[in-house]
């Protein structure tokens, strides 16, 4: 097996105006462009949503509940319909973006950083520490997340931080084991061996040579984990541990709309769609970045650009 993998990201640094080049590539890949725009909108809602629409999103109207979508008679806020308490779903989805993104980003980032760091150690070193880390991952994988949540609820008071902790802990093993599996293999590759012979420090080998190869897989998992975490969070709210009404998240909206699925589908459909679209966009952007940042792959985007 000839092994001549290259060290990525070098070509990009040489480019006089890397940002402009990225933008140009993005402009040519319309799907990625739409995804990026959608994510910017979500981020905007997460930051400014509660400030702009909080009043509208909490205004109840019991006698005008479950109003169907696409009926503009009650104002543009009701374009996606009303919920079981007559609140406009559109406004609620925008306001909920804030909590949702905070919890999901927090949990995914924490688990990814902790998991992949431990995975790097476990894969790169052959010491006892790596064995301990792996058995710890086994233990976490077998520990029911609900039990963890109940324990946290009893020991600490309910708060957003706690829900992030619970979700992050349960998601650590997947990053840990995936990182380690890849490191086990990359460690043996020619270029890593060569770097080691040339006297590169462990840190340098890990961060300059190994991490860039592992990162794309981690990113793929992380983007899909966003959806998982957003939905799992609502199950923990049931216990009283996480976001409590009248505070709201997309996951909570989805689960509150569940009984209405066959009568008023819009209650859980729109927030669910928000989750799907966010996940989809994250994934598309990460796929695109993976190609755009990889000099070996970049021709795909550039060729397409020239064609158009």
């Amino acid at each position, binding site marked *: 097996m000839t092994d001549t993998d290259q060290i990525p990201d070098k070509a990009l640094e040489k480019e006089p105006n890397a940002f402009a080049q990225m933008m140009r590539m993005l402009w040519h890949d319309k799907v990625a462009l739409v995804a990026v725009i959608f994510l910017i909108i979500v981020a905007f809602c997460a930051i400014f949503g509660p400030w702009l629409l909080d009043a509208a999103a*909490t205004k*109840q109207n*019991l*006698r005008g509940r479950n109003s169907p979508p696409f009926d503009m008679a009650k104002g543009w806020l009701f374009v996606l319909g009303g919920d079981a*308490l007559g609140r406009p779903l559109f406004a609620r989805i925008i306001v909920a973006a804030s909590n949702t993104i905070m919890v999901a980003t927090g949990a995914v980032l924490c688990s990814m950083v902790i998991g992949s760091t431990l995975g790097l150690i476990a894969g790169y070193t052959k010491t006892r520490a790596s064995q301990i880390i792996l058995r710890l991952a086994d233990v976490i994988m077998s520990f029911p997340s609900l039990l963890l949540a109940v324990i946290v609820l009893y020991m600490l008071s309910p708060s957003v931080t706690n829900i992030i902790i619970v979700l992050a802990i349960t998601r650590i093993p997947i990053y840990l084991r995936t990182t380690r599996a890849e490191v086990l293999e990359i460690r043996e590759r020619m270029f890593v061996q060569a770097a080691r012979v040339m006297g590169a420090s462990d840190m340098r080998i890990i961060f300059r040579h190994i991490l860039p190869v592992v990162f794309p897989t981690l990113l793929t998992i992380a983007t899909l984990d966003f959806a998982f975490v957003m939905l799992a969070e609502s199950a923990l*709210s049931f*216990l009283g541990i996480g976001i409590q*009404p*009248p505070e709201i998240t997309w996951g909570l909206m989805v689960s*509150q709309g569940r009984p209405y699925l066959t009568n008023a589908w819009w209650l859980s459909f729109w927030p669910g769609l928000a989750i799907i679209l966010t996940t989809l966009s994250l994934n598309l952007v990460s796929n695109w970045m993976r190609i755009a940042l990889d000099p070996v792959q970049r021709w795909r985007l550039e060729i397409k650009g020239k064609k158009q």
Partner: protein
Amino acid sequence: MRKLSVGLLGASLAMTMMSPALAEDTDVTIVLSEELDLIDPCMASQSNIGRVVLQNISETMTELDGSGGGLMPRLAESWETVDDDTWRFSLRKGVVFSDGTSFGAEDVAHSLKRVVAEGLVCEIGAKYFGGSTITTEIIDDHTIEITSDPAQPIMPLQLSGLTIVPSETPMEYTREPIGTGPYVLSEWNVGQNVILTRRDDYWGETPAVTKATYVFRSDDSVRAAMVATGEADFAPKISELDATNPATDFAYPNSETVYLRLDTLTAPLDDVRVRQAMNLAIDREAFIGTIIPAEAILATAIVPPSTIGWNADLKVPAYDVEKARALLAEAKADGVPVDAEITLIGRTSNFANVTEVMEALLAMYQDAGFNMKLEMYEVAEWLDFYSQPFAEDRGPQVIEAMHDNAKGDPVFSMYFKYASEGLQSALRDPAVDKMIADATAATGDDRTSKWSDLFAYLHDEITADVQLFHMVGFSRVSERLDFTPTIATNSEIQLSQIGFK
């Protein structure tokens, strides 16, 4: 060619597997919401166990008529008082248990002993006979005297909850319940189903249903779908949202009452004006037909209107935010800390839409000027707030709870919810304690009026809590069955009452 025929064989095999074994048209399938943990008769007061066991496998001495006919004889033919604390029951003759032994006074005595036995935690014992000492004297094979200390004027009613088991039943949970009822437990495939079949030697009329299969699905819409597709014949509990077919779907009062318990021991809820304001600040009517079913009734007491002593004169507080604000201001002027943050505590999945109801209540209270926050907890945590002992530094709490009393007498509710020693009572009022004790000991019309007075006192004088709704349940009955759910359906499903069209 050979391959093809094997394939066809496989396909036809699969086809026969797909169609269920040919069922007789007098068999029924009932889909319940929860898997049974136990099928011991002494646990039959738990609604999911009761729906299988009560009056099907195990019968009781007396029976409360679900359609409002009062107390009827079942295994006891008649009863009378001997003195204040002793009752004499004459038992039905010619009754045999499903194991072939005959039923007599010995079995009644054993059943009473078993539900309060040490080493066996029986819910019936805790629920109906807790706090009193029961002794029995067997007069002859079919006559028994039962004595209660303290005296229990409604003992025949209490005995409508006692399942009778043969005197050989061991003092541990049984997995093979034996009873005098028209059905026997023939199969229990844990996780999948429970099957009852009809007995030939039942003392009463032979029921129409020959075999009943109980299956368990926790999802509301799946239960409704099963009756719609014909996989099941009866779903005692479906969601209001799925109850859209008038031909099969029925609403029935389920004897549950939703209320807010106010912590009268903590300021500012210890002030009657604040409690009145809490009653005036909510628009109860707005809930009905929206997030609470249209068939539900506004409540003025913790027990449903079919209960004796229920006071028809009590008026549901009118929705009046202005007055609520005025009362709060008045209390504030007198130094009551009305600005202290009140915690509104709800129980997740307590009933359909509970979160929405709590959110709406919160919004109404905040609108009236209450400083309030909402917390929703799963049952285990919620119980810590609802039951004594209460935490010392809890702050003012308002707790949502749903209470079930299908027995027709307030005695099963009032002590626990309102007496100073009551486990879920946040009230310390000697007058209430005395009224409860007096009513509990009274009989006949005197009992009725004493309960009535208590309800009036709690509601109008001291405004002990915020009563909300008497709830309804929804059920779906296949069109081939002749059966109408009643208030009793919440705790039992008598197969003998099911007919076929």
